[in-house]
Structures are given as C-alpha cells and as structure tokens.
C-alpha cells in the first residue's frame, strides 16, 4: 500500500509497473484495476492553458493512507497504489493514478472506484485554472 505526491510530471503506468514489479503479490493477482485522471485542455466551455494544483501537505498523505486502509478492510484486495500530482501542470498531464490489485476482478473494480470517489470528495487538493485572460479556482461539482 503506497501513497505518493509528485510535484513534477509522472508516468502513471510506469509507476504502476514499478510498484507491481517490487510488490510481494506476483503470481497471486488476477485483476488490476487502474484509473488515471488527466488534465483536459478545456473545462466548463473554456480553453484551459495551465493548472495549479495546491494541496495540504501532510493531511493529503494522511487522508489518502486512511482511505487506502479502509479499502483494504472493505474488500479482499492484495494491494493499492495512489499517486497524485501537485504544482503547475499542462493539458494532457496525468493528475492522479489509482491502482488496485486483487485475485478476482470485482474487488479491484469496487476498491479502485471507492478510492477515486473518496479522493475526489475529501482529499485536500484544489485546482486553479489559468485561462487566456484570467485564473480561476475550480468549483466543486461532484
């Protein structure tokens, strides 16, 4: 179980493979469910040139570790990985990776979605978008 905050661009699938290669569950996992959130070049009808992702250092990690532990309690999974970007980013940059490994698929699907929903609803990250003429804080919608 690992939570990582990255302040520079990262390759989510490479992170996943690196973690998987060093984890203790080789041969035991039949299912990997991975979700990657990526920065879009538009939002709410406007072109977005760049984005600043602020977070609450310390609380972010604590919260993500808490939901990872919860997922491991709720479902029979082998392991999970969360990587989240912070700082200045550009369209097409990966923002977040959530990956879950389990013996069978239902648990990986359920747990990865749970982690993403909990992350979106409560993890202390905030997005500020830079448009052509202004910057704006993204307002919560989901």
């Amino acid at each position, binding site marked *: 179980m690992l939570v990582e905050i990255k302040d520079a661009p990262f390759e989510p699938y490479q992170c996943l493979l690196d973690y998987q290669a060093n984890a203790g569950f080789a041969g035991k996992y039949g299912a990997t469910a991975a979700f990657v959130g990526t920065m879009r070049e538009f939002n709410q009808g406007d072109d977005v040139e760049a984005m600043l992702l602020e977070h609450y250092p310390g609380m972010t990690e604590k919260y993500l570790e808490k939901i990872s532990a919860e997922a491991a309690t709720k479902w029979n999974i082998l392991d999970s990985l969360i990587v989240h970007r912070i700082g200045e980013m550009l369209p097409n940059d990966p*923002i977040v990776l959530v990956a879950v490994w389990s013996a069978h698929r239902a648990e990986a699907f359920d747990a990865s979605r749970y982690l993403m929903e909990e*992350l979106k609803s*409560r993890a*202390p*990250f*905030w997005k500020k978008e830079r448009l052509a003429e202004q910057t704006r*804080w993204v307002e919560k919608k989901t």
Partner: protein
Amino acid sequence: MTTKAVITVKFFASLREHVGQTEAEVAESGMKSVADVWSQATNNMALPENTLMAVNMEYVDSSCTVKAGDEVAFFPPVTGG
C-alpha cells in the same frame, strides 16, 4: 509552556485568498472551538458556507474543541483527482 500556548491556523486555496493570509498563530487562551479559532484568526470575518475544517489534519466540524499546540485548517470544498 509559553511557546506552546498557541494554535497554528492554516488557510488554503480560494479561502486563503479570501482571508488574505496563509498561516496564523492565535493564543489559546479562552478559545473553545474551531469556530472561535476562525473568528480570532480572521478578525471576526463571516465563515463562508461550505468551508471545510480540520484539526491536526483530521476533518472536524466547527464545534470541535481545540487545545494549545493544535493545527487548525480552513479550506474550501476540494477539487483534486
């Protein structure tokens, strides 16, 4: 104990800009709740609706009691992921 008799207050994102400060320290004396910390740190600004609050990096509500040495944070709804 004098150096510990304060509460550290943090503001994030749009709320940080709204209150015009990133971090503050307030004396612990006489405060009982997170709402009291907000009032003292912001000079009695109104607490915006939907503000989220944490004490020592755990979510709480505004009635949560605080003590010297605590870190209290105020921030808007989160938008990560």
